[in-house]
């Protein structure tokens, strides 16, 4: 049986169900009891203040505390409110969290889930709006996922909470605030890591669009359809591990690859996928790989400038047209 839930409800439900299932699961973060965006709102009533733990404002230290708890039998879900703030915790995340299991020779896996919000367009300016997924892909030992539907939000979050490996879940503010809805089963389910989804079929070009950008790609597809260009849209869902098979099976068919992300261009998710394309999959390419991403500048406060900064339907359409 499925019902319609919005993105926020799906996250909230995933956490509540896993907390009921497993007493070692708990939530910590800044103001997770009231919940700044709402994903953990109301949970304190069911689970109490100990398991829904408000922390001081100190991102690196609360990440370390969550890691310590994970070393000692707990399965913490840590919220780092805005992804921008995760930069404060990069030492813990990149140097230690992802590496701990390895450098202890497998003795200490760290079953820790980090949830953090990405995305611009809400006039929050510099430092509250970035999509910094690419800052994490260099780090070994992490799993990175970014859902774009309520179904995936719940299923991936459950996989994350049950995983013995550290997982970072990126949640886009437009999906949280925008109330995007979708069918979610009543029954328990998970979405496995490393499995992309084809959101729309097409034979002219492969568009890999991460997270919220998938919706912009769907809009671009409508516009392009008017010119009889049929793009295939792939939502990777996992950033690490990446489902190369699904992406490059599509490229095999289309010969054209466009990668779309909200984050910045240089060294972004698109760079890595483009590099894979012109490496092992070079023979599949019939045209230059296109990257649609934000420019290498800070996110300006001015609404006019912020809108110019963001990749969107139009920049996807332009990129597809360059190769189709």
């Amino acid at each position: 049986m499925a019902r319609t839930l919005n993105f926020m409800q799906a996250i909230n439900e995933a956490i509540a169900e896993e907390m009921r299932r497993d007493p070692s699961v708990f939530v910590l973060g800044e103001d997770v009891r009231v919940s700044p965006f709402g994903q953990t709102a109301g949970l304190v009533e069911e689970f109490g203040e100990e398991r829904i733990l408000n922390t001081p404002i100190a991102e690196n230290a609360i990440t370390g505390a969550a890691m310590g708890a994970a070393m000692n039998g707990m399965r913490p879900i840590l919220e780092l409110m805005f992804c921008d703030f995760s930069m404060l915790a990069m030492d813990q995340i990149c140097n230690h969290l992802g590496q701990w299991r390895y450098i202890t020779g497998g003795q200490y896996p760290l079953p820790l889930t980090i949830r953090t919000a990405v995305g611009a367009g809400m006039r929050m300016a510099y430092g509250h709006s970035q999509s910094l997924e690419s800052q994490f892909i260099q780090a070994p030992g992490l799993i990175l996922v970014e859902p774009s539907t309520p179904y995936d939000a719940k299923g991936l979050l459950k996989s994350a909470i049950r995983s013995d490996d550290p997982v970072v879940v990126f949640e886009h503010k437009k999906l949280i605030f925008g109330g995007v809805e979708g069918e979610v089963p009543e029954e328990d389910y998970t979405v496995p890591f490393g499995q992309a989804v084809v959101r729309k079929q097409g034979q002219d070009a492969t568009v890999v669009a991460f997270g919220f950008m998938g919706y912009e790609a769907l809009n671009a597809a409508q516009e392009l359809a008017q010119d009889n260009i049929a793009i295939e849209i792939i939502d990777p869902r996992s950033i690490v591990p990446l489902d190369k098979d699904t992406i490059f099976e599509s490229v095999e068919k289309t010969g054209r690859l466009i990668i779309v992300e909200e984050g910045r261009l240089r060294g972004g998710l698109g760079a890595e996928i483009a590099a894979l394309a012109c490496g092992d999959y070079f023979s599949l390419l019939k045209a230059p790989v296109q990257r649609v991403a934000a420019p290498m500048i800070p996110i300006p406060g001015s609404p006019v400038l912020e809108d110019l900064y963001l990749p969107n339907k139009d920049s996807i359409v332009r990129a597809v047209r360059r190769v189709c």
Partner: protein
Amino acid sequence: MSLSNAKLLELYRKMLLVRSMEETHGKLLQEGKIQLMGHFGTGQEAVAIGVTGPLRPEDILFGTHRGVGEFIGKGMTPKDIWLEYLGKKAGPCRGKGTLHLADRKLNIPGLVSSLGADFSMAVGTALASKMRRTDQVTLYYVGEGTCNQADAHPSMCMAALWKLPVVFAVCTNQFCELSYMCDHYPTDDVAPRAAGYGIPYEVVDGQDIAVTYEATERAVAHARRGQGPFLVEYKTFRMATHFTGDPGHYVNPEEREQWAARDPIDLCRKKLLEAAVITADADQKLRAEVQAEVDGAVREGFAAADPTVEDLFEDLYSGKGVL
């Protein structure tokens, strides 16, 4: 008491300006005219204006996300603030900072997005003041929640170690975002932490502008004399919710009532009226004048030109051809 009547009146006017600025911001949001959220400092005006009052133009200020108090206090005009808030090209940050106000001519180097990142920057500006043999002081204005941020610690350590001219001005408004201070603090006060570094401190009432001003004046004088850092903690109450989208269900209404009875602007007005510095009429006139200034600034802001796509790629590097 070092505060003259004239000075008190000046500070009163600034407090009115702050309140009016924030009320106007709230109104524009409610009317759907802007999207820019506000974090208002209603009820804390005596702190923001008291901590900036004793500063000289050459002194450096790091302010907070909570409203415009300290920026007005340091000399920013409603017009400049609205130009920036509305993201206009003529704003001091050319519309790129918006909420993150900076103004070089007033020695306001900017407002960080990550709480506490400026703790150490303030130490750095003070270090430069010392190295350059100026008698400039840096005032670091900060909320109690932010004082838990990790860098508060090495920053205070460096300030004390190098005896730097920096004043840590802590605004304890009982809240840290969506929770009470007791969710964040094992103690009632922030200030005694300074003792661990040998930094002298004071804890003062944050509702009385004379108290906040004079405590800051002492702290700034200490720093300016080369005696090193000083920390002042001002006790006040955040009458606004955390930001304009926060319904504030977690706030205890009785406690809020109690603090409301000691509104800093009302307290100051009473003092001015009692000391006959101002009449009730003159006060009315002053308030209307202040509101008119703000309304004018908003009008000018809306009328000003937006930046364009060329501006988007300006201001990143000093060197040419890097971007």
